[in-house]
């Protein structure tokens, strides 16, 4: 490790140092405003840090972390998602009792954990990043002082995520016991793995599938999504899952994990169950946060097609490109959907406006929020001219190239089912409200600006995705 390496780690150095300033600032001026704006400044500085050109680029830092295009792209997504979450949390927390300062501190710490996962090339880095992220999330989920659902969601997530983490850790210990290395790039390919190594990988995949909420490890998802405060749910759905997607992508590329038939078949089962199960169960939901939870299960299932294609297509880079394009679209769509829900829930009420009837007459009550919610629903459904269509097009192309017919058909069937429940949300918004079931509120302009920006992003990159594609290809060194 040299001084030059610090340049490569610029975003990490900036966010960590900014974190310390943040803590000091909050201890001197204990107001939510100071905490929010310091957090925003730290996150924006982190985004700027991504553009720092290292004088002597070295990608691998003592084998612990890798800062390559994959890392940088994900760090950008994570920082922007954290910014959006901070903005949406502002009025959400202002309307509720309790102090809001620690929320933003935990949010930045969680983002640092996700960024560490994004660069992990060593199981120790993975463990550190994962737990910085998870422990912060336990508190963020249970943050509201009043109401019972957040507490229940936080406890459920703590216990179940703890079991998943330990399962993954035990798997890592078994792999280490057999292969004697913790570095991703030293594990080697699956040919000639002993039974214990295979078992270790099965346990790791189970832990990872839990974090990605792939069926049948998805049981916690609807409850936690429903109980968590709406801005945190958006963060949980995007950053926490995205970080794990990057880890499994990097691991699969380094070790060629899915060239082994057993690993590939496990992935196949997880992906098909998630795509079909997630979409079918979403049909039954009347709570929009639960609906989005099942929809996120299905979306991560679609994303797994790109991972399955890694070992089946001529150039794995195309599969990695698909992963990044899908993640970008998924981040924008989910953040817009949960952002709209948190804007609607930003009032004095002790519960979130997450029942589907709460959306009645929304087109007249809050035109802007409902238009963005409509855009995000159409994008999640994969309607053309949105980012969701572009992402699905990428996944299908990659799946067809890898001749993964079962997966591609599951995606097509799943998407067909999904149109029903996404459109139902839109139709409910156009219905006149029978009675005011949820207190009225006036959304602040900052939140609406952020929400509009997300909606515009979904549309612009849906109609003209070339800049995004160029960015991803440049970062991956494909251009």
């Amino acid at each position, binding site marked *: 490790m040299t001084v030059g390496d610090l340049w490569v780690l610029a975003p990490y150095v900036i966010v960590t140092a900014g974190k310390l300033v943040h803590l000091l600032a909050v201890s001197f001026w204990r107001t939510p405003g100071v905490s929010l704006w310091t957090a925003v400044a730290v996150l924006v500085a982190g985004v700027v840090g991504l553009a720092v050109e290292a004088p002597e680029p070295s990608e691998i830092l003592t084998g612990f972390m890798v800062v390559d295009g994959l890392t940088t792209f994900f760090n950008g997504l994570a920082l922007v998602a954290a910014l959006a979450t901070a903005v949406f949390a502002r009025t959400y927390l202002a309307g509720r009792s309790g102090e809001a300062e620690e929320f933003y501190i935990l949010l930045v710490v969680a983002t640092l954990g996700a960024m560490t996962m994004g660069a992990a090339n060593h*199981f*120790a880095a993975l*463990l*550190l990043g994962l*737990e910085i992220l998870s*422990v912060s999330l*336990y*508190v963020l989920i*249970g943050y509201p002082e009043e109401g*019972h*659902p957040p*507490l*229940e*969601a*936080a*406890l*459920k997530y*703590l*216990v179940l995520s*703890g*079991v998943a*983490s*330990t399962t993954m*850790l*035990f798997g*890592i*210990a*078994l792999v*280490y*016991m057999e292969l*004697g290395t*913790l570095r991703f790039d030293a594990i080697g390919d699956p040919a000639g793995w002993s039974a214990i190594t295979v078992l270790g990988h099965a346990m790791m995949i189970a832990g990872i599938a839990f974090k990605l909420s792939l069926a049948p490890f998805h049981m916690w998802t*609807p*409850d936690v999504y*429903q*109980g968590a405060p709406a801005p945190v749910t958006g963060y949980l759905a995007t950053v926490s899952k995205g970080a794990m997607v990057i880890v499994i992508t990097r691991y699969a590329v380094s070790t060629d994990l899915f060239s082994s038939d057993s690993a590939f078949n496990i992935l196949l089962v997880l992906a098909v169950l998630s795509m079909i199960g997630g979409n079918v169960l979403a049909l*039954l*939901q*009347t*709570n929009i946060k*639960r609906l989005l939870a099942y929809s996120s299960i299905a979306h991560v299932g679609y994303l797994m097609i790109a991972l399955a294609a890694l070992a089946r297509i001529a150039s794995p880079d195309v599969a990695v490109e698909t992963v990044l394009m899908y993640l970008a679209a998924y981040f924008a769509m989910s953040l817009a959907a949960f952002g709209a829900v948190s804007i609607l829930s930003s009032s004095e009420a002790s519960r979130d406006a997450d029942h589907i009837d709460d959306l009645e007459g929304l087109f007249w009550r809050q035109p802007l929020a409902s238009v963005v919610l409509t855009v995000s629903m159409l994008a999640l459904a994969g309607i053309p001219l949105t980012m969701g269509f572009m992402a699905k097009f990428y996944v299908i192309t990659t799946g067809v190239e890898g001749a993964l017919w079962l997966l591609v058909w599951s995606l097509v069937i799943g998407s067909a089912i999904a149109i029903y429940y996404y459109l139902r949300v839109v139709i409910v918004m156009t219905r006149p409200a029978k009675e005011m079931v949820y207190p009225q509120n006036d959304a602040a302009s900052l939140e609406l600006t952020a929400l509009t920006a997300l909606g515009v992003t979904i549309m612009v990159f849906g109609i003209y995705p070339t800049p995004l594609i160029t960015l991803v290809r440049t970062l991956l060194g494909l251009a």
Partner: protein
Amino acid sequence: MMTAAEIPLEHVLVLAVLLFLIGLTGVLVRRNVIFLLMSLEIMMNACGLAFVAAGARWADPDGQIMYMLVLSLAAAEVAVGLGLVLQLERRMRHLDIDAASELSG
């Protein structure tokens, strides 16, 4: 004195697997949140033991470093977990995780 090299790896591995299964059973069977956290702790210690044994096999410090990371992770999880337990006790007047389940649909 018995050194680590004299204890066969298989024995340690079996012990770690047993500890892991005891912890997992505890999480599945127990309904009191305190006992859930204790069972989680047992599972984490099983991982720690496996890492130390693996590190001894390769005469490599990485296993012990992982054990220290697991240890700090366990401490952090329990700290947050106990905080939530206090909240649960204050709001619900009991620690039964099954009774704390309003979320469903």
